[in-house]
């Protein structure tokens, strides 16, 4: 399997361990990634609230760069998925609008074509379940995550709005994290916040609301017995992990729950060591996860 790969900004910034672990995991799974190093930020919905046409053109450029490789595109960020799908929906709806946007790109020798050879842009989670396949993933597991109690945390941008995000064709996309966790041998923890908002988009605008959201979800997962959370979104990771000590103050309770990036969780099951996967870079300690895994292996 070979894919055009858009890592996003945050996975190469504050959550560099995500980009690093994705590279290791892709290689071991036998997925060849062609990185789109000339592509630009998706705008995270923020550029669109300033100028929708600008956001659509920027993302059309990224899609065009991916299409130039002749490969389907993969991202590792729920927010990229949501922001890019939003622009793609507008571009795909109207050929005159698409032609208008492509005119701007034509000077760069680029053009976004709708539905060419069934071209898609999918989050790693969707690729893993729909294209790679859970059976094949199960065969690659070297260290089953037996006994590890894992709470899924999706990130809004891969679960809503359903119509835009391909749920008509793939209605179970909001259950894939559970399916992956079980495939890796882990135990799914049911808790209230799995498909709720981490609060990140308002961290600079309404800090207290934002941290209350993050703190509530982490607390609910702890109460439900989770050893860790797993998320396909680095922005959720920033609020759930990096801001966790601040969130604890707002919800007025002790937290301390490891939050893993999806490729890290897969990586652990594929036999990589936590250090290789950059788990030491997290703010919420991952030691408990390592202890649980060690005790199972022993």
């Amino acid at each position, binding site marked *: 399997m070979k894919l055009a790969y858009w890592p996003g*900004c*945050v996975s*190469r*910034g*504050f959550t*560099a361990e995500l980009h690093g672990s994705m590279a290791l995991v892709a290689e071991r799974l036998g997925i060849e990634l062609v990185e789109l*190093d*000339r*592509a*630009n*930020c998706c*705008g*995270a*919905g*923020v*550029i669109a*609230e*300033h*100028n929708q*046409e*600008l956001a*659509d053109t*920027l993302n059309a*450029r990224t899609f065009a760069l991916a299409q130039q490789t002749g490969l389907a595109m993969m991202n590792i960020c729920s927010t990229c998925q*949501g922001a890019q799908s939003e622009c793609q929906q*507008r571009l795909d*709806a*109207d*050929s*005159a609008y698409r*032609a208008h946007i492509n005119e701007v790109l034509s*000077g*760069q020798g680029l053009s976004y074509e*709708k539905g060419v050879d069934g071209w898609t842009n999918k989050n790693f989670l969707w690729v893993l379940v729909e294209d790679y396949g859970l059976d094949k993933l199960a065969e690659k597991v070297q260290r089953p995550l037996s006994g590890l109690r894992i709470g899924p945390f999706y990130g*809004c*941008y891969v679960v*809503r709005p*359903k119509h835009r995000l391909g749920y008509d064709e793939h209605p179970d996309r909001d*259950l894939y994290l*559970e399916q992956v966790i079980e495939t890796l041998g882990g135990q799914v923890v*049911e808790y209230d916040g799995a498909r*709720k*908002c981490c*609060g990140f*988009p*308002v961290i*600079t*605008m*309404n800090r*207290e*609301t934002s941290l209350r*959201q993050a703190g*509530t979800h982490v607390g609910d997962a702890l109460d439900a017995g989770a050893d860790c959370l797993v998320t396909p979104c680095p922005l959720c990771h920033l609020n759930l992990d*990096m*801001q966790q*000590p*601040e969130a604890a103050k707002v919800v007025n309770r002790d937290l301390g729950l490891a939050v893993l990036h999806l490729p890290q969780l897969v990586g652990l099951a594929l036999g990589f060591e936590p250090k290789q996967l950059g788990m*030491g*870079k997290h*703010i919420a300690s991952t030691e408990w996860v390592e202890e649980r895994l060690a005790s199972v292996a022993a």
Partner: protein
Amino acid sequence: MATYTLKVRRYQPESGEGPYWEEFDVELDPSLSVLDGLLQAKDRDDGSLSVRCSCRAAICGSCGMKVNGSSTLACKTQIGEAHEQANRRPDVPAEGGQIGHSTSGTSNPIVVEPMGNMPVIKDLITDMESTHWEKIRRVTPWLLPHGDPPEREYVVEPESMIDITQSMACIQCGACVSSCLSMEADPEFIGPAALAKAYRFVGDPRDAETTERLHDLAHDPHGIYDCTHCFSCIDACPKGVAPMDQIMRLRRRAEENGIDSDPNNGHNHMVAFTKIIEKKGTLDESLLLQESYAPGVKGKLKPTKGAIKGLLGSIPTALRGLKTGKMRSLPKLIPGVHPKLPGGAQDEVKTIYAHAQEHREEFNLYIKGEDGDEETAVAEGLEPDPQKETA
């Protein structure tokens, strides 16, 4: 005809007891609605089961409630589909159903609850006054024209009203308010229904207080910059109003109307983000933090009180990041050191920005439709003819 189990969250204030769950078995065709199921249970099993409803055709907006955790109209939700939804993971009950499986044994019940973010009056009936109607009144939901009224009706170009038709489609059911994740964390948030209603008047060509309305909504700390962008209201709305899209329109209109400061630093954040991508192509997170709170720190430093508080509040997080190594590299530490895109790619991004200075088209899917216009496109030569290609 099939048998379904409805697991209803019940509450009778006069009993002095707290809320509890009760299951009802109902028999009806899968194409009938969850509301039909509830009315059958009320008719056959318990006349005290309370539900607000009227038209049964998704027009009156009375029967808003949560079905399997999702805010919706009970009359617009087919019971067969709700049953399937509750049984997507046979071993795990639907949201809200954590207290045991159906009494009928083999499958999960359909879980029915009153709307969220609102006080419950009785069973499935909520009090919409404090969390919905009060907020609707908060946005001055009537026209504020200037000058003497015309002798007859106001005359406007039909095209100038198209933009607000989507927000006009609201039937005040409260499903978006029920689903709102910002309001769940901040009950003071004006909320999706009221803000969508606000856009209905901001976008109306007959209204003369557009700037005042936008200033008011931007300067309320629980206004347009308190939306956390979670898309819940878009999925919940039974009429396609997409309240969050209207909130984003309000943010664009606020900027266009020169409202460039607000207590939430919402405008600064948006401008800082957009400018960084023009300069660097990808996000320089340190610079975003600095510029969101204190724009133009190198030139004129004019941070608001809220900005100083926000910036100080982010310091402990940054220090922890340094400790674990998360922020130890220079681009993550020093705002502005972040690299540009390689080999001329940054200039390509800048070209797009230059074009965007003159172009701000808002492509509206609600008006244009999502199915595309391929036939017209082929006729106008914008797209190749697929039939010709295959032939």
